[in-house]
C-alpha cells in the first residue's frame, strides 16, 4: 500500500523529447518507475530511452493503460498539457513546470478535481513512493523505503531533510512535493489524511515555509484528525515582508503568511517544530524510539 502512486503506476512523460524530459525519464527509469509512454507533438513514432513517443496523450492512451503523467512543457503550454492528460484519463498529473500563470494553475486544479484526479504542483519536484515509483526530478539515491511520510513545499530543502533522515537511519514511505506556487493542486491538508491513513507511515514530516496559510490550515486539520506524530520545519523565519523568496507563494503580504503565525498554529496543534533542518532526525529519533 502506498498513497497516490505505487509500483503498478503506469506513467506518461509529456515533453519527453526535450532536455529535461529525456534526462528525467532516464532518472525515473533508473529508480524503477514504469514509464510506458511519452508525448511530444510531431515526434510520434520516435523512442526516448526505449519509451515510445506519441503525438498526443489520446494516442498514447489508446496504446497503453496510463495512470499518471509528468509535465515538462513550457509554462505557456502547461495548462493545455495538463488538460490533455486529464482528458486522456490520467488520475495524477505532476506539473514540474515553473512560472505557470496562476489563473492557468487554478483552472487545471479545478478541472482535475471535477474529474476525480489530482494535480501535484505546479512548480513541484514531484512525488515518490520510496522504492516503488518516483515521478519527479529529485535525486534517486535519497529515497529508501521507511516509515516517515514527508510533505514539502520546497525541493532541495526537502532533499536535505530526507537525506538527513536517511543518514540517521530513517527511510521514507511517501514524499510529496506540494510545489512553490500560490495555487497548487495538493496542500498539506490534502496529503495529511492520506499519510494518516497509510499503514506504511508512522511519522509525518512537514516542510513548510512563509507565505499563504497552508500551514495554519494544516495545524487545524492535525489537531482534529491526525493521530500520528508530526514534525515540521519551516523556512523563511528571517525573510523580510513583501518580498517573494524564490517561490511565488513564499511572501508575507499584508501581515499574512508570517513565520510566527505558522509556528504558533502548528505548536498549538501538538506539532514538533524544528528550529534548524538537522534537528528533524533528532526529533524523529525521540518520537520513534
Amino acid at each position: 500500500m502506498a498513497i497516490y502512486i505505487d509500483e503498478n503506476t503506469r506513467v506518461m512523460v509529456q515533453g519527453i523529447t526535450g532536455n529535461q524530459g529525456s534526462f528525467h525519464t532516464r532518472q525515473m527509469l533508473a529508480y524503477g518507475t514504469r514509464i510506458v509512454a511519452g508525448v511530444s507533438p510531431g515526434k510520434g513514432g520516435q523512442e526516448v530511452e526505449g519509451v515510445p513517443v506519441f503525438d498526443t496523450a489520446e494516442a498514447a492512451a489508446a496504446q497503453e493503460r496510463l495512470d499518471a503523467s509528468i509535465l515538462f512543457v513550457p509554462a505557456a503550454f502547461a495548462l493545455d498539457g495538463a488538460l490533455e492528460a486529464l482528458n486522456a484519463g490520467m488520475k495524477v498529473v505532476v506539473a514540474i513546470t515553473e512560472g505557470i500563470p496562476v489563473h492557468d494553475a487554478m483552472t487545471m486544479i479545478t478541472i482535475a478535481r471535477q474529474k476525480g484526479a489530482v494535480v501535484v504542483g505546479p512548480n513541484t519536484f514531484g512525488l515518490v513512493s520510496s522504492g516503488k515509483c518516483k515521478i519527479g526530478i529529485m535525486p534517486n539515491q535519497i529515497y529508501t523505503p521507511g516509515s516517515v511520510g514527508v510533505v514539502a513545499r520546497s525541493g532541495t530543502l526537502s532533499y536535505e531533510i530526507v537525506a538527513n533522515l536517511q543518514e540517521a537511519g530513517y527511510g521514507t514511505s511517501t514524499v510529496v512535493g506540494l510545489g512553490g506556487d500560490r495555487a497548487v493542486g495538493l496542500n498539506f491538508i490534502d496529503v495529511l489524511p492520506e499519510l494518516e491513513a497509510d499503514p506504511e507511515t508512522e511519522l509525518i514530516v512537514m516542510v513548510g515555509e512563509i507565505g499563504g496559510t497552508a500551514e495554519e490550515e494544516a495545524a487545524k486539520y492535525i489537531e482534529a484528525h491526525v493521530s500520528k506524530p508530526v514534525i515540521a520545519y519551516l523556512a523563511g523565519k528571517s525573510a523580510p515582508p513583501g518580498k517573494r523568496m524564490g517561490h511565488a507563494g513564499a511572501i508575507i503580504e499584508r501581515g499574512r503568511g508570517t513565520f510566527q503565525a505558522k509556528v504558533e498554529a502548528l505548536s498549538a496543534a501538538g506539532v514538533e517544530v524544528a528550529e534548524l533542518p538537522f534537528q528533524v532526525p533528532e526529533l524523529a529519533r525521540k518520537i520513534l524510539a
Partner: protein
Amino acid sequence: MKLFEFMGKELFKDYAIPVPDGRVVRTPEEAAAAAEAIGSVVIKSQVLTGKRGKAGGIAFVDDPQSAQQEARRLLGMEIGGFPVEHLLVESKIRIDKELYLAITLDGGRRCPLILASLEGGMDIEEVPEAQIVKYPVDVTLGLRPFMAREICRRLGLTGGQAKAFSDLLFKLFKLFQEMDAELVEINPLVISGDSLLAADAKVTIDEDALFRHQALHRVEERTDLEKKAHDLGLAYVELEGDIAVMANGAGMAMATLDMLHYYGGKPANFLDAGGGAGVEQTARALELLLATEPRVILINIFGGITRCDDVAKAFATVKEAKDLTTPVVFRLVGTNEAAGLEILRGIGIQAYRTMQETAQKAVELSRQSSA
C-alpha cells in the same frame, strides 16, 4: 507586478468601470494645467505602496495655483521608500458612501475570491470580519448573475445600487480574469446617488502571465541588482547584511538565511541559483554576488539534479577570472560530490559537509572581517 493607480484606472476605463475624470502629471506646471481644466481636484501621489494618505501624499485643492504648490510638495516626497514621480490629478467627487470591493486569489480554495464590504475607505484589515462578504468563484463557472445577487443580498444592497454594483462587479471580474490579475482592489468604491465610481485602483498582474499582455506597460519594483538577477533567470532579493548567500532551491536558500540569523550573522541577499543549475548559470550567479562586495560568501549546495562538480568548476572559473579575495565558505554535498570537492581543494578551498558548520563559519568570518 503592481500597477500604479493611474495605470489601474486606465485598465478600469478599458473595461467601462467608471472612474473620476483625471490626468497623470509629472510636474507642478502640468498639475496646475490639469486643475485649470478640471476644477476642484484631489492630487494623489503615485506610489506602489498603501497608506499614502496618512503619509501626507494626497492633497485637495480648489485652484491651479494651490495645485502647483501642492504638486511641488508631493513630487519632493518619498513614501514608504518610493520617490513620488507621478501625480494623478482628479476631479473631486461627491461621496455618499464608501464601499470596498476586491478580487484576490484564494490559494486554499484555488480560485478567485471576491471581497466586498459596505465599510470602505479604510484599510480592509481594519474592518471587522463580520462586515466583509467573502465569496469564492469556481473558475470553471466564472462569475454568474446568481452569485452577484447573493453578494448584494449579503451586503444588503438593493434596487439601483445592487444593479450598479453587480454591473461593476462583472466588469471587474472580467478584467481580473482577462488581465491575469492577482489582485484588483477598489477602495473606496464610492456611491454617488445610484451610480458608483472607483475612487482608487490597486491592480497586481501575475508576472508569470505577462507574456500574454505585451501591451501592458512594465512597472519595475526590483532594485537594479534584483532586476539583473531576474533577467538572468535567478530569484534574488537584496537584504541589508554582509554575508552573500547562494543556495540551490528557494527553500534551501531561505533555510540558509535563517541559519545565519540563528548564529548571529547578517545575510546580504537571498539567491536561489535554481534546483538544476549548470556551470554557466552558477557562474552568472556568483558574479552577481561579487558585485555586492560582501564580507563573506556562503555557498550551500545540496546536489540533487545540480551536479557538485559543475558548481565547483563554475566557482573555480569565476574565482580565477575575478581574482577573488573575499573569503568563501562552501558546502557541497550530493551528486558528484567527490569530483566537486577535488576541484575545490585544487583552488585551496576545504568545503564543509553540513549546513550548520558552514553557517557558523560564515558568521565567524563576517565578524573577523568587520572587526
